[in-house]
């Protein structure tokens, strides 16, 4: 037992040396997560601001100006043109200079004053449906606000139903609050899975794996010795990412670190298990790299990070059940933003435990039994 532990310790030391000795790899693993987090934290925000739009005001009345002022007054929109010609509308949208054109009919004020319904047409560039959808939502809000003002100023009764939204755990509904904690899992998975996937493939390609098999290591020892260093690096990355989320982005941490790390360890175990399994079936590093890529991409895209899993087709939803990142993102959100304890996280924990057990067992078996 002791000799077995010593052998595992030797393997861990060797793995860490081999990975961290090269300055480029070291930077890649420790600095790259910070850079990614900063880039995604700033760039990949879904909160819209300064959306370019054009006004096609065919009424040119006080009412139409008031409506446009509502749009201009919100930080979401920026008017870059006033147009007078329908052809211009097409040109602006086709050339992507604006996302929206707001067209106000010539009888806008007249109809409003007469107590009738007045229409405002909004033409959006549907080629980027996400942006267009979000922009239309913002227009809606502006129009809503205009309605309320108009009724008040003209002594009319307020609208019968009024929405009073409150967002729990993220009061200002900042995408960043959602995205950055989720990236803790995503970024970590990418490097740990890749590290694990290449580790055995690399040894196989360089012939050093035979040397390990000839030494008194048993497959389980090799696997533990390979899994732990990858997990150590993964945990270092998660920690860095958490620090950036709190110290730089100032996203308040609601839960317990112990709970979060317990969940992360389980998640990394699953990610490393998948990586080692990929590694055990690849003969060369190139194969390992390719397999890892085809695994990581769907895992990252179908994790609920960008699209809610509940809106995916049934078949894809079934696939996400074997995606450890799906559970990890949920877990990080719940601990980070909601502050849940381990007892409530069970639905996220057990699937990751199963994924880890299955992949690690399969990998250990493949180590010894895979024959070229």
């Amino acid at each position: 037992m002791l000799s077995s532990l010593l052998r595992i310790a030797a393997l861990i030391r060797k793995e860490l040396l081999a990975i961290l000795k090269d300055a480029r790899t070291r930077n890649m693993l420790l600095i790259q997560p910070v850079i990614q987090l900063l880039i995604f934290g700033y760039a990949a925000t879904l909160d819209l601001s300064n959306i370019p739009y054009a006004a096609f005001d065919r009424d040119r009345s006080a009412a139409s100006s008031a409506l446009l002022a509502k749009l201009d007054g919100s930080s979401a929109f920026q008017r870059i043109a006033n147009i007078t010609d329908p052809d211009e509308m097409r040109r602006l949208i086709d050339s992507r200079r604006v996302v929206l054109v707001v067209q106000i009919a010539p009888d806008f004020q007249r109809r409003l004053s007469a107590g009738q319904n007045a229409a405002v047409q909004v033409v959006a560039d549907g080629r980027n449906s996400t942006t267009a959808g979000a922009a239309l939502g913002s227009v809606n809000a502006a129009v809503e606000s205009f309605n309320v003002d108009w009724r008040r100023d003209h002594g009319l009764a307020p609208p019968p139903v009024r929405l009073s939204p409150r967002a729990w755990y993220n009061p200002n509904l900042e995408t960043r609050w959602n995205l950055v904690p989720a990236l803790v899992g995503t970024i970590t998975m990418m490097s740990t899975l890749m590290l694990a996937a290449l580790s055995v493939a690399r040894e196989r390609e360089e012939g050093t794996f035979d040397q390990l098999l000839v030494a008194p290591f048993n497959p389980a020892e090799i696997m533990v010795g390979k899994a732990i260093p990858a997990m150590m690096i993964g945990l270092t990355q998660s920690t860095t990412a958490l620090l950036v989320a709190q110290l730089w982005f100032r996203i308040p941490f609601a839960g317990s670190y112990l709970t979060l790390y317990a969940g992360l360890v389980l998640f990394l175990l699953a990610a490393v298990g998948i990586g080692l399994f990929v590694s055990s079936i690849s003969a060369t590093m190139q194969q390992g790299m390719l397999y890892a890529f085809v695994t990581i991409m769907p895992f990252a895209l179908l994790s609920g990070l960008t699209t809610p899993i509940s809106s995916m087709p049934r078949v894809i939803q079934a696939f996400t059940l074997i995606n450890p990142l799906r559970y990890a993102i949920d877990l990080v959100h719940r601990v980070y933003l909601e502050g849940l304890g381990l007892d409530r996280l069970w639905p996220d924990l057990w699937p990751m435990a199963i994924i880890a057990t299955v992949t690690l067992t399969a990998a250990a078996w493949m180590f010894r039994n895979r024959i070229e």
Partner: protein
Amino acid sequence: MTAPVIVGRDLRKRFKQRAGGTLDALASVSLEIAAGGVSALVGPDGSGKSTLIRMIAGLLSADAGELTVLGIDVAKDPQAIQDRIGYMPQRFGLYEDLSVQENLDLYADLHGVSAAVRAQKYPRLMEMTALGPFTGRLAGRLSGGMKQKLGLACALVRSPELLLLDDPTAGVDPLSRRELWEIIAALVRDEGVPVLISTSYLDEAERCDHVVVMHRGAVLAQGRPDDIAQVAAGRTFRAAPRGEESPRKLQARLLADPTVTDAAPEGGRVRIVCTTAPGDAAFAGLALEPVPARFEDAFMILQRAADATRAKMSTGPAPALRAEQLSGGVKAEVVVEVRDLVKRFGEFVAVDRIGFEVRRGEIFGLLGPNGAGKTTTFRMLCGLLTATSGTLNVDGADLRRSRAQARRKLGYVAQKFSLYGQLSVAENLDFFASAYGLAGAARRRRIDWVMDEFALHPLAGVLGGHLAGGFKQRLAMAAALLHEPDILFLDEATSGADPVARREFWGRVNALADQGVTVIVTTHFMAEAEYCDRIAILDSGRVLAQGAPAEIRSHALTEGNPEPTMDDAFIAVVEQARAAALQGRAA
């Protein structure tokens, strides 16, 4: 003779090393290669052979000096030279994922060979290399000998005015080597193409018209091999061992003698090169029989004289590679037993019902061409591969099924360098020592010990991947000996190693066997069979012959060849077996 094809004056090339410092790959090399015939570059690893060939091919520029190839100044117009020469790099320069035909087409395209020329050239190349039936096969699936011939064919797709071959026979068996030399001879004879070849086989160099002996980036001698051999004139002898002593024991004893430059077992006796003309007293009791000097003798004298540190290795006492002495000598106890062993990969039978026994303390050699099944057998012995059927027993255990602890008793040096290239020498040793359960002071002591024995101390901080070939081999051996194994498996350990390094290697193996370690080696250097107590010759997965070296040699005994070499014996045994197989098929 017309004007020389290659003239180099005072060529220098210095490389920056990753670990800092510089390496003089070429330090003032001057040479002249005549227009006709075959010239050879010989020398140990790192002596600058490849650097020089690449420079002549215009692939590398000299730091200083003048180099003229085919009358063209290389520094001014490397492209003009590349348009006129054929060059085959080390490891043959093939695209392993392309078929034989695609490789040829690719080289023809790269050199702009017209369709008309191809139509005329291809059949001739195919006939010459006997690759015709394999045009559709992927280059990566060819045997070493076939790859080598394909590499040559690719270098010959357009008719070159000069052919440069960088170590074409490294890791290739005697039959394939002989075929390659026949092709080269025909090329020189029929087309008059001058050939420059670098090689670590001294018997090949001896066959050339002109030889350049290199050492650490300098030229030690150049001229006709016969003339260079005269350096050793009057200093070469042969002696038979007395009584019970085996030739390799005698060889080890002689090498330890300071008045002996070189000793190698040969045909049941030992060939000796003396440092000076010997006094009788030095070899009391040995009947010295003078023999004509060969190129190899002169080569060893030149190398030893140029490199004092190498000499220390062979004259020192036998290295103590084990702390705990096993009693030396071959015992009756069988430690490795193989019976009816079969390994199939799908349809392909890699190992076909082979059997042999190895006794404790014996040096046992598995010899055979590439693809004969040596490595497959080895991997099964070490438990890296499952046998399809048959019995396999290593020191009382089947390593495939036995616990990890049983593997503690064996050491394994793989065919290609298989330690961690990204770790330093010290870190590699540290890891393997811990892997075998060494800890604390014991670990430090063993590591110190092997580093002493293999002269690795100055290289402790160098990354494994940056070591020169010979030192990689030393490191691999050192790592395999850390845990004092009882059985040592050495797979093609001398493949690609230079003659001096090979001599050192066998000195160590000898010393280990003396200390009671059982050593099993595979090699395709047939001459190395002389170091073994017993050998088995493998071809196409079957054992063709086994026994002591003298028994094997007797297979090639004819009136015309009363003293056959191991190469002759190998070729005779393989050809007899192949002929018998053909007859069997016909009947």
